[in-house]
């Protein structure tokens, strides 16, 4: 098998609204750390960043027309074939940014099923750090993502001193830890409905997951099965 040759696809969703954006800074750090881990383990990685604000109008249009324009669709297609996702949003009024949610709402249902996702957020102070756990985590649980248990919240002061009064583990350390778990999940996905567990006879190091396809017809059922009377 020539699976090792396939570069892994890591897609970063960054929903910061300003330029420069601390959300994008955090997203870039997490992406770089994940890439480092994967490459150290011998797997080349393609990283694509979806800067959500660049698609703001497309997202609103798609919300109303029920289809994504060509530009937005190519970003969504990239997402649908990702081996791993990093989702980063600013925290506004106790929650993820509205634009972040609007973007998720125009992505096809099922795009995240079984996909390893690392959750991260930024905010003014560490007081908001639980927003990840009561907004982002339930959202991606609903989407049946394979959520990395360790998430990363960066407050403004995290970009200054290496440690803060609230948190003695520096942002760098948290970033590396979370990235390492994400990388491991990408290489050894948790069995899900979409990708069932390997049979017990499989050897200890399972092969890389199959490349995901953009097939829109995953819910296709042949008519002979549709017509079969239920038992």
């Amino acid at each position, binding site marked *: 098998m020539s699976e090792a040759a396939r570069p892994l696809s890591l897609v970063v969703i960054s929903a910061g609204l300003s330029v420069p954006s601390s959300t994008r800074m955090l997203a870039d750090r997490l992406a770089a750390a994940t890439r480092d881990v994967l490459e150290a383990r011998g797997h080349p990685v393609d990283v694509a960043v979806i800067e959500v604000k660049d698609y703001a109008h497309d997202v609103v*249009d798609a919300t*109303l027309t029920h*289809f994504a*324009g060509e530009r937005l669709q190519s970003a969504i297609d990239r997402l649908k074939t990702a081996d791993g996702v990093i989702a980063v949003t600013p925290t506004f009024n106790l929650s993820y940014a509205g634009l972040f949610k609007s973007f998720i709402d125009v992505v096809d249902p099922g795009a995240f099923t079984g996909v390893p996702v690392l959750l991260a957020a930024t905010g003014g102070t560490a007081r908001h750090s639980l927003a990840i756990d009561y907004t982002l985590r339930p959202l991606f649980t609903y989407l049946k993502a394979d959520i990395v248990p360790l998430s990363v919240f960066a407050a403004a002061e995290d970009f200054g001193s290496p440690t803060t009064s609230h948190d003695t583990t520096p942002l760098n350390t948290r970033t590396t830890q979370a990235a390492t778990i994400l990388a491991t999940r990408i290489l050894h996905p948790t069995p899900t409905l979409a990708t069932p567990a390997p049979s017990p006879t499989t050897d200890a190091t399972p092969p890389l997951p199959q490349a995901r396809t953009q097939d*829109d*017809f995953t819910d*296709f059922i042949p*008519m002979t099965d549709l*017509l079969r009377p239920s038992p």
Partner: protein
Amino acid sequence: MQFGIFSIADITPDPVTGKIATEHERLRRVVEMATLAEQVGLDVFALGEHHNPPFVTSSPTTTLGFIAGKTSRLLLSTATTLITTNDPVKIAEDYAMLQHLSEGRVDLVMGRGNTGPVYPWFGQDIRQGINLAVENYHLLHRLWTEDVVDWEGEFRTPLQQFTATPRPLDGVPPFVWHGSIRSPQIAEQAAFYGDGFFHNNIFWPPRHTKQMVDLYRQRFEHYGHGTADQAIVGLGGQFFARDNSQDAVREFRPYFDNAPVYGHGPSLEDFTRETPLTVGSPDQVIERYLGMRDVVGDYQRQLFLVDHAGLPHQTVLEQIEILGTRIVPVLRRELDALRPAHVPDGPTHAALVAARDAALAADGEKPHSDAYRFGTGDNWTGLTAEGGEEARRQVMLRERRAQQRLADAPAGQELAGSAGSSSSDDAPSAASDE
């Protein structure tokens, strides 16, 4: 190729004048649109079905029947008929009746509807949408092709020895299209029966339409109804035309900007680039719609939406006239010339009757007879003993032809190769084994 218009008869305020039609006015205008469509040489008028405001299309066969009486050549169709929430027995009766009274000028597009509450209003569950479409259509298909039906399904009360009346005109049911925007199961359903597939792509980019049509074509061939390019495809469309394209854009823009569904969203320019909506001169509309063939291949029917978003009735009539006299003649000439001989034209009753007669003759069978074959008198159901003999024979013949078609098709070879499957599972009429 067949060209026409379709309407969902929505009542929308004119965003320029603020005027809003009464239900009565809107209904009369729908009828006027249809009669003008025939006068300017269009082939098809299709009407939607909705059971809530702001629509006046709750009873399509009443409206289409009235239009049938005022026209002589126009084909009457639906856009769409709710196969999910209507009783298939009532659809079989209503449309067979319309077929007789209109002298065969009727076909149907099956749809699941896009108003969620319609399901509970008619006692159904939206989560069963696909299953309802599959089971209800299978029953409808049987009611139209078999004189006597025994039926037991999941969604409807059972039937014993039931005959849907009137029997279809000349023994040939109205042609059926299955409409779906994004459900591959519906493309599959259309392919399975060898029915048409209608993609109402007015709000969708061509790349999506192509995916759905390609799937339908491939499965049509799979089930042995012909080659993929012989499958029967219909498309939606939308335009606004004036002699001068700048005039068209200027006049249409407020209607676009305030339209239900997409208004206050994408710009007119973005939307015309991404979807089949074309706003400009008749030549621009012609050029755009000649291009649809490059997307989906040679196809059989093109319908246009011309009367939404509160456009004034007079403007709508002008658009129908431009369509019939300046756009369609060119499209028809060009597209008919390009279509190869082995690809069928749009379905008509006469063509379906001829095909049935040819099939009977090829099998050495006697010609179809319309002679009354049912019992007479009160409370009668089903066939007389003599009529029953003939009906059973016709069912057997049809079933044998379906089995043969499938056996010769990729689907049959697939089944033959898989151990443990019964080949009769694949026949549309397999359930009729009494």
